[in-house]
């Protein structure tokens, strides 16, 4: 016969199993901080080195210096993305192995698929904007689609990701309205917000 303590432990284990089997809990708060730092550094580089603000330059020329600067900004964006995703994967992998769990499990797969659908759709939209010379729309739209992806993925990881997603969506929409501040909203969403979120998650779950 089990004692009360056993039943309380049972409930705890049921909860943990339900969570562990359906949600990806290896996401690291530090990954958010790093992504934010990359995004802010990228923004600074764009601002200082390229002296580029896409809100001003709504239709980048197809030839000449501005077109080249534009493609360099796009390359920088892709570099930031690769760095952020790579860091997140590495830190999650480390967190999972520390907890004695597999990094690439069913929950991780579900998280990635649910993020990928809005992100891929968003990526294609950005390419269409660029090809039609609507470069100014790309920054706020990337926030918008990223927010949708987070909102969608939040069912499969920490609940807090949902609020992060909603705020990114709002920032994206605001960026579309106030298009001249596109870079500012982008830095706010991908930079500052990621850092705040990462620090919060780190203190909440990882100490």
């Amino acid at each position, binding site marked *: 016969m089990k*004692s009360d303590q056993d*039943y309380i432990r049972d409930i705890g284990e*049921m909860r943990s199993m*339900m969570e*562990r*089997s359906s949600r990806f809990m290896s996401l690291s708060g530090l990954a958010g901080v790093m992504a934010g730092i990359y995004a802010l550094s990228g923004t600074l580089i764009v601002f200082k080195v390229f002296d580029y603000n896409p809100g001003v330059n709504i239709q980048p020329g197809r030839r000449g210096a501005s077109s080249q600067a534009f493609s360099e900004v796009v390359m920088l964006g892709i570099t930031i993305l690769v760095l952020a995703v790579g860091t997140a994967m590495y830190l999650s992998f480390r967190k999972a192995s520390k907890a004695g769990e597999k990094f690439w499990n069913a929950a991780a797969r579900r998280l990635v698929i649910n993020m990928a659908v809005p992100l891929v759709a968003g990526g294609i939209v950005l390419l269409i904007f660029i090809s039609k010379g609507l470069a100014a729309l790309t920054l706020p739209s990337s926030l918008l689609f990223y927010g949708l992806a987070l909102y969608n993925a939040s069912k499969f990881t920490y609940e807090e990701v949902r609020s992060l997603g909603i705020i990114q969506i709002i920032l994206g929409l605001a960026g579309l309205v106030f298009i001249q501040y596109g870079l500012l909203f982008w830095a706010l969403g991908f930079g500052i917000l990621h850092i705040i979120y990462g620090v919060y998650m780190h203190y909440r779950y990882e100490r």
Partner: protein
Amino acid sequence: MKTVVHNFHKAFESTIRLGIMSALAANDTVDFNSLKEYLSLTDGNLATHLKALEKEGFIDLKKSFIGRKPNTKYFMTKAGRKAFDDHLKALEKLITRRSGKGN
């Protein structure tokens, strides 16, 4: 201490079986290897527990192939869902009664 226990199915006495049912309650289907990983069990041990739950009619399975590797997916039956919910309710009742006494 007097123990008030009803609605506790004997299948849920085992922590491992409770774990299997919890994983299946939270997901539409869970494959054999994932269950093995969640519960850190050997193939044989897990298979025994799954067989027992299957015999109760609490879970069922779907066999398929990924390439040439067999892949068995488990899911909860309606009877299993009901038994699991009843068990949860009974646990809840037990805990609230106990904590009520403490006040």
